[in-house]
C-alpha cells in the first residue's frame, strides 16, 4: 500500500531523512518509532504530499507522490502533530468544510459527518466551537477530520502527544478500532504505545532506518533474556547479602545475579534470566520460602534509548558521550 524507496530529505543545513526504504502492506498498523527530531514528521509530510522529497521515491496505493499527488491526497487521511483545527468553527461545520475539501459528494456529506462523529465520539459536541473544546476532544475532532473521506491510508503524527493518561487510552482504543478499514502509520516516541497498537514497527533515528520488523520479533529479540529487579529484606535483621545471592543463583533459569546495593537491611539485586525463561514466579517463591520478605520484584523494561543502542550496536558510554557533545554545542554557539 505504501512504498518508500531511498527517501532523502535535506533542509538547508541538515539532512532530516537519509535514504529510508520501507513498505507497508494493506490493512497493517505500523508504528513509526524514534526520538524527537529523528525524521518521523518529515517522512510523513513527504507521504502526504506536503513537501517533495529531495531524492528517492514514495508511493501510496501505487501513485507516486510527485507524479500524481492528487490521487495520493485523495487516498490519505492525515492528522498532523497539532490537529489542523479552526477554533472559530463549530465541530459539524468544520467536518463539513473538510469533507468538501476532500471531495465527498454533497449527498453523502451529512451521513459521513454523522458517522465519523460517532466513531470518534465527538457527536455530543457537534454544535460547539472547536476553540472551546478540551485537548482530548480536539484530538478526536482531528481524527474525525482524517477519516472523513474514508481514506485507504491514515497517517497520524504523534496522535497521543500532550494528552492526559485517560485521553491517551481513549485515543489508542479509537485508533485500534479504525484498524480494520485503513492502513495506518502512526508516529510516536513511546515504546509501549507501539506494543499496544501496532503490528509492525519502523524504527528511525537521526534520519536513518534502524530496524523494521513485527512487534513480536523485535521485542523477543530484545527481551529474550529477562532482567528483573529484586529487593529483599528480613524481619530478623542481619541478612547476609552473599547468602541471598547464592540462593537466587540456584533458582532455575537464572544466568546471573548482580548485587546492586544494600542499606537499612534492604538488599537490592539485578537478576538476569537465560534466553526465553520467565523467572519471576520462581524468584518470588525462593525468597519467600527462605523466610525473607520480598520487598520489590519487577521486570526491568528496555527503554527506547536502550533499544536504539542495542539495534545500532553502539555502547552506552559512546551514546552518553555523544549526548553530552550535542548538549555542549548550542552552549558553545551562544558565546
Amino acid at each position: 500500500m505504501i512504498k518508500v524507496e531511498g527517501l532523502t530529505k535535506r533542509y538547508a543545513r541538515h539532512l532530516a531523512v537519509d535514504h529510508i526504504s520501507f513498505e507497508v502492506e494493506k490493512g497493517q498498523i505500523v508504528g513509526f518509532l524514534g526520538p524527537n527530531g529523528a525524521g518521523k514528521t518529515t517522512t510523513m509530510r513527504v507521504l502526504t504530499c506536503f513537501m517533495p522529497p529531495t531524492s528517492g521515491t514514495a508511493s501510496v496505493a501505487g501513485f507516486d507522490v510527485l507524479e500524481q499527488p492528487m490521487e495520493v491526497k485523495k487516498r490519505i487521511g492525515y492528522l498532523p502533530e497539532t490537529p489542523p483545527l479552526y477554533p472559530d468553527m463549530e465541530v459539524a461545520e468544520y467536518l463539513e468544510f473538510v469533507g468538501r475539501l476532500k471531495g465527498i459528494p454533497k449527498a453523502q456529506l451529512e451521513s459521513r459527518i454523522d458517522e465519523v462523529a460517532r466513531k470518534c465520539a465527538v457527536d455530543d459536541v457537534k454544535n460547539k466551537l472547536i476553540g472551546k473544546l478540551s485537548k482530548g476532544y480536539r484530538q478526536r475532532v482531528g481524527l474525525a477530520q482524517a477519516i472523513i473521506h474514508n481514506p485507504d491510508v491514515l497517517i497520524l503524527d504523534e496522535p497521543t502527544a500532550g494528552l492526559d493518561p485517560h485521553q491517551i487510552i481513549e485515543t489508542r482504543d479509537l485508533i485500534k478500532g479504525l484498524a480494520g478499514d485503513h492502513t495506518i502509520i502512526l508516529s510516536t516516541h513511546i515504546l509501549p504505545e507501539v506494543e499496544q497498537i501496532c503490528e509492525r514497527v519502523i524504527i528511525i533515528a537521526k534520519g536513518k532506518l534502524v530496524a523494521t520488523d513485527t512487534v513480536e520479533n523485535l521485542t523477543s529479540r530484545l527481551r529474550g533474556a529477562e532482567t528483573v529487579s529484586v529487593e529483599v529484606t528480613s524481619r530478623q535483621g542481619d541478612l547476609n547479602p552473599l547468602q541471598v545471592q547464592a540462593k537466587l543463583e540456584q533458582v532455575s533459569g537464572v544466568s546471573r545475579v548482580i548485587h546492586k546495593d544494600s542499606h537499612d537491611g534492604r538488599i537490592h539485586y539485578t537478576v538476569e534470566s537465560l534466553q526465553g525463561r520467565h523467572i519471576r514466579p520462581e524468584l518470588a517463591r525462593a525468597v519467600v520460602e527462605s523466610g525473607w520478605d520480598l520487598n520489590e520484584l519487577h521486570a526491568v523494561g528496555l527503554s527506547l534509548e536502550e533499544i536504539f543502542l542495542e539495534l545500532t550496536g553502539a555502547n552506552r558510554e559512546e551514546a552518553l558521550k555523544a549526548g553530552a557533545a550535542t548538549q555542549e554545542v548550542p552552549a558553545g554557539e551562544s558565546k
Partner: protein
Amino acid sequence: MNTLTICRKELNGYFRSPIAYGVMAFFALVAGYFFYIAVAIFVQRGIESSMQGQSMPMDVNEWVIRPVFSNVSVLGLFLIPMITMRLFAEEKRSGTIELLITSPITDLEIILGKWLAALLLYAAMLGLSLISIAMLFAYGKPDWRPIAVGYLGLVLQGACLLAIGTFISTCTKNQIVAGVAGFCICLMLWVLDWVSAFNTTSLGKVMAYLSVLQHFDSFSKGVLDSKDIIYYASAIFFGLFLTARSLESLRWRA
C-alpha cells in the same frame, strides 16, 4: 467548486471575527464623511454662484461624485491590508495550512478562493457607499454611467491591492507583520507618482505608471481607459502569481 468551498470558509471566518464588522463600520463612517464634505462644498458653491447672479450649470458628477471616489480609493489603501493580513498568516500559525495543502485541491484553488473572499468583503464594503449615491439620485439627476465606471475602478484597484496583500500574507506567520507590511506597500504604491509632479524624465514616468492611484484617476472621471484596465489586470495576475510561488516555496522550505 473547491475554490468556492475555500471562499465560503473565508467569508464565514471574516464575519465570525470582528474584522469584517470593524472594517465595514470604519469605511461607512469615513466614506459618509467624505460624501458629506463633498455635498457641503457643492451646496456652498451653488449658493455663491447664484448670489453672484450667474446661474452656472453645476455638475453633480464633477463636484460630488468624483472627489468622493478619489477619497474612497485612498481609504481603500488603509483598509485592504486589514482584510488580507490573516488570509495565509493565520493558517501558517495554527498549522491548518497542512490540512489545505494535503487535501486534494490545487494551490491555485486555495489562492483564488481566499482572494475571492477578500474581494467579496471589499465589494460589500464598497456597497455601503451606495447609500450616499442613492441620496444623490433621490435629490438630483446625476449621470449613472460615470458612477458605474468609478465603482468598476474601485473594484479593480481593490482586486489588485488584495492580490498583493494576499501575497504578503503568505510570507509570514504573524498577522500583524502581514498587516503592517501590506500597509507599507500600499502606501508606497500610492506615493510613487508624486515624483511626476517635478520629474518629467522617463524614470518619473515609469514611477508614475507603477502607482496604483494614478490609474484610478481616469475611472473617477468616468473614463474607461484600456491602459488602466491592463495595468490593474496585470497587477492582479502578478500578485496572485507571487502568492502561488510563495506557497510553493513554503513546501520546499517548511
